[in-house]
C-alpha cells in the first residue's frame, strides 16, 4: 500500500512540476522591487547598491541594459547573475563594466520561461566579498 502511495505521489509530482509547483519555491520569493517604475536600492553593510534596467517595461527576450550604482565600494567590474526564484535557469551572467566613479553597465537578456512565470531575480555580487555578500533584486517581467 505504501509503495502504491509513493508511486502515485511520484506520478503526480512529475506531472505537476511544469505547472509552476516548484519544491524550492519559498514564501520570501516575492517581488521586492518594482523595476518598471524605476531603480531599486538594496543596502549590504556599508554598501548601497542601486539597480536599474532599461528599456521599461522590462520584457523577456529583449536586449536589456543593466546599470548598477555601487556606493561604499569600488571595483573594475561587477557580475550580475540572472535567475528565477525556485527554479534553476542555468548560467546567465552579465558583466558590468565601470563607466563612471560608481556606475557599472552591461547588456543582457532575460529569457522567456514556457511555464509563463514572470518572477525573476538579479543578483549583484559585491567585489572581493565572497558569495555571501550579494544583493538580490526580485521583480516581475513582462511578456
Amino acid at each position, binding site marked *: 500500500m505504501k509503495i*502504491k502511495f509513493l508511486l502515485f505521489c511520484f*506520478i503526480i509530482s512529475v506531472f505537476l512540476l*511544469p505547472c509552476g509547483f516548484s519544491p524550492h519555491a519559498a514564501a520570501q520569493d516575492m517581488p521586492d522591487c518594482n523595476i518598471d517604475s524605476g531603480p531599486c536600492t538594496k543596502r549590504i553593510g556599508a554598501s548601497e547598491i542601486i539597480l536599474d534596467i532599461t528599456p521599461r517595461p522590462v520584457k523577456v527576450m529583449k536586449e536589456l541594459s543593466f546599470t548598477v550604482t555601487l556606493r561604499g565600494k569600488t571595483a573594475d567590474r561587477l557580475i550580475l547573475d540572472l535567475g528565477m526564484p525556485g527554479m*534553476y535557469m*542555468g548560467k*546567465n*551572467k552579465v558583466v558590468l563594466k565601470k563607466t563612471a566613479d560608481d556606475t557599472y553597465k552591461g547588456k543582457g537578456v532575460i*529569457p522567456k520561461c514556457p511555464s509563463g512565470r514572470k518572477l525573476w531575480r538579479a543578483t549583484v555580487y559585491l567585489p572581493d566579498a565572497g558569495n555571501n555578500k550579494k544583493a538580490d533584486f526580485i521583480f516581475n517581467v513582462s511578456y
Partner: protein
Amino acid sequence: MFHTDSLYILMFGSGFLGGFGHCIGMCGPLVASYALHAQSTDGRRTAVLPHILYNTGRITTYSFVGAFMGFTGSFVNAAAGIAGIQDFAAITAGIIMIIMGLGVLGVLKGMNFIERHSGTVIRAVKAVLESESSWRYYPFGILMGFLPCGLSYSAFIAAAGASDLLQGMALSVCFGLGTVPALLLFGIAVKRISVRFRERMYKAGGIMITLMGLYFIWRSIAVNA
C-alpha cells in the same frame, strides 16, 4: 571573462545541474510520455536505446541552434529567427503527448476518425510513433530540441556571446551533454516502474500524459498570446 576551456566545463555543469534541477520538472512529463509509449510498443528489449536516441536528437538540435547563435552573435535576433519553429515544436509536443497518452490507454486504436479528419502534422506524428523502429526517437528528439526552454535559452545566450559558429556549437553541445544524465536516469526509472506496475501505471500515466499534452498546448498558446 572566462577562459574558453573553463566555459565549456561551466556549460556542461550548467546542463548537469539544470538537468536535475530544471529539465526533470519541465520536460519530465514528455520523457515519461515516450518512456511509457516505448514500453507499450517495444517491451523491455530496448530499455535504454530510445532514451539515447532521443537525447542524441536533442543535442543535434542544440548544436545547430548554438552554431546559429554563435554565427549571428545575437541571441535576441537569432531567437526571433527560430521563434516560429519553437512555437511549432511546443504545440507538436502537446499533440504528440495526447496521441501517446491515448495510445497508452488503448483508446487511439478505435479512433480512426482522428486520422481521417486530422491534419498532415498529426498523421505524420502518428506514423512516426507507430513505426516499429527505435530510430523514431531520434527525429522526435530533434524536434523536441526546439522546445522553448528557459534553461537552454541561457546556454544559447552564452553561445551567442561567443560570436563564433564553432564555439557556439561546441558550447551548446557541452550544455546538452550535461543534461543527458538526469533525463536518461529519469526515463529509465519511469520505464522500470512501469514494468513493475504495468496496469496501474499505464492507466494513470495515459490519463496524465493526455492531460499534460493539453496543458502543453494551452501553455504555449497562452504564453505567446
